[in-house]
């Protein structure tokens, strides 16, 4: 699995997380460590859907 460069993630990009969730990038502070994203799905906790959270680089496993 190749390492994803967070600085290339534009708002609107859909990304998959290690826990199986899918989120959509809302904004990118370009620090290479975090992105702000909105949950589209979460097998772990469905109450997260629609909420925004800071997503840590190492939790991101793929671009969807």
């Amino acid at each position: 699995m190749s390492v994803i460069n967070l600085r290339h993630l534009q708002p609107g990009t859909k990304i998959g997380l290690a826990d199986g969730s899918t989120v959509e990038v809302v904004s990118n502070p370009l620090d290479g460590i975090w992105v702000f994203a909105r949950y589209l799905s979460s097998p772990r906790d469905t109450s997260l859907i629609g909420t925004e959270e800071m997503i840590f680089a190492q939790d991101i496993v793929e671009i969807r």
Partner: protein
Amino acid sequence: MARTARHDAIHALVDVKQGLISRELFVNEELYQQEQERLFAHCWLFVGHESQIPKPGDYFVSAMGEESVILTRDREQRIHVFLNTCRHRGMKVCRYDEGNTPVFTCPYHGWSYGTDGRLVGVPYYRECYQEQLDKAEWGLVEVPQLVNYKGTIWATWDEAAPPFAEYLGGMKVHLDTLLDCRDGREGGSEVLGGVQKWVMPCNWKFAAENFAGDAYHNISHRSVDLAGIGPSGAGRRDTVERSTAQRLGASFPDLGHGAVSFLQLDDVPYTPSYQNTPIVEEYFRHCYEERKRRLGKDARLLGLVGNVFPNTAYLARQPRSIAVWHPRGALKTEAWRWFLVDADAPPEVKDVLRHYYLRYSGPAGMTEQDDMENWNYATLASKGVIARRYPYNYQMGLGQDYGTYDSPGVLTDRIAEQNQRGFYERWAAYMDGARTDPRNGGRNDGRATRKGARPGAHRPESRGKPPDADGRSRSGG
């Protein structure tokens, strides 16, 4: 060390009554370290200018003593000053000079802070902290007191420090000659261009005491005046109104500040200074007349130079600027200089001033180079064990009283070293504990002032708005 012993030790080095100051103040590493705790951790320090952070998310990395700090404006337009260090392992959370960001992220482990200082991102917060870490307790360390004074941002680490206006005291009228518009309106300045930064191999106090009002060293700048770098492109290095005014040296020994201004004794017409640039000449002529109309007799005071204790200096008129002498060791100072201009001045005026300022000040400025030569070689020549036995002489004007003008402070109408003596009198008061001992009526007991910096004390949501110069709560924006 008991306070009495400390007092004796300090006053063996600083004898303002005799006008003798030990060279140890300029070369001794132990004294330098004591200054960080006893002085820089308590004084009000200049951090930056509001025009450097006009938009939410803007930041400017500055320093308070040896500490790196972030001056920033949050989403609610509130101005903050934070210690630039992660609460987890201490890494700098901002390694740029200035910019705009929604968060300050530590590159070490990834803790991330909002521009309001709150800890907003902790990697593995759920998995490894089990959501038990109280993020509200681990925000960036924020200064307990901050003030926006006419666009300039000042802060102190001392929760018990007096309000800025009280700290400034009678120095206000002199500082205002720097910060107010050239036509007499209050405030209204902006930073012109970037901040010049350079390192000098000298103790910070050489620069501070020089700008507190050393009018004796004009001979050092004689070559500059011969070269003719004045605003008009010729003549003396600064403006010439001073030739029709009375010198007014003002010392505030109970506060440590010092200034040299000029007081016009009569109704003096505008003195042409920008003959080579008619637009600029007309602008300053207009400002001069407007200032007289607005301020009346108060317009007679023309600022020249000053130092707000301990390490913030200014040139009030030409080249209008603020300098901070950041301590970087007993034998090292990092100088930063901000150039100011009225924000609504015409572009042609700003451009002419920018060129003039650069001819005069900064590491490539002809006048500032003269000063650095003196400070650097004085430091070098004071390091030796033999040289250290011989104190510097600050006896000019000792015992003379010239207080005949309607202005605050201890005044002189000629060249004297009272401002330097006042500076070191205050320095000694901080260093011997007299300033900070509650038994002495001081409000700055170091034991009671650590609250703002103690771990977990930071609660930005309950902090409210910073006070203004009079101690009232106000917006920093």
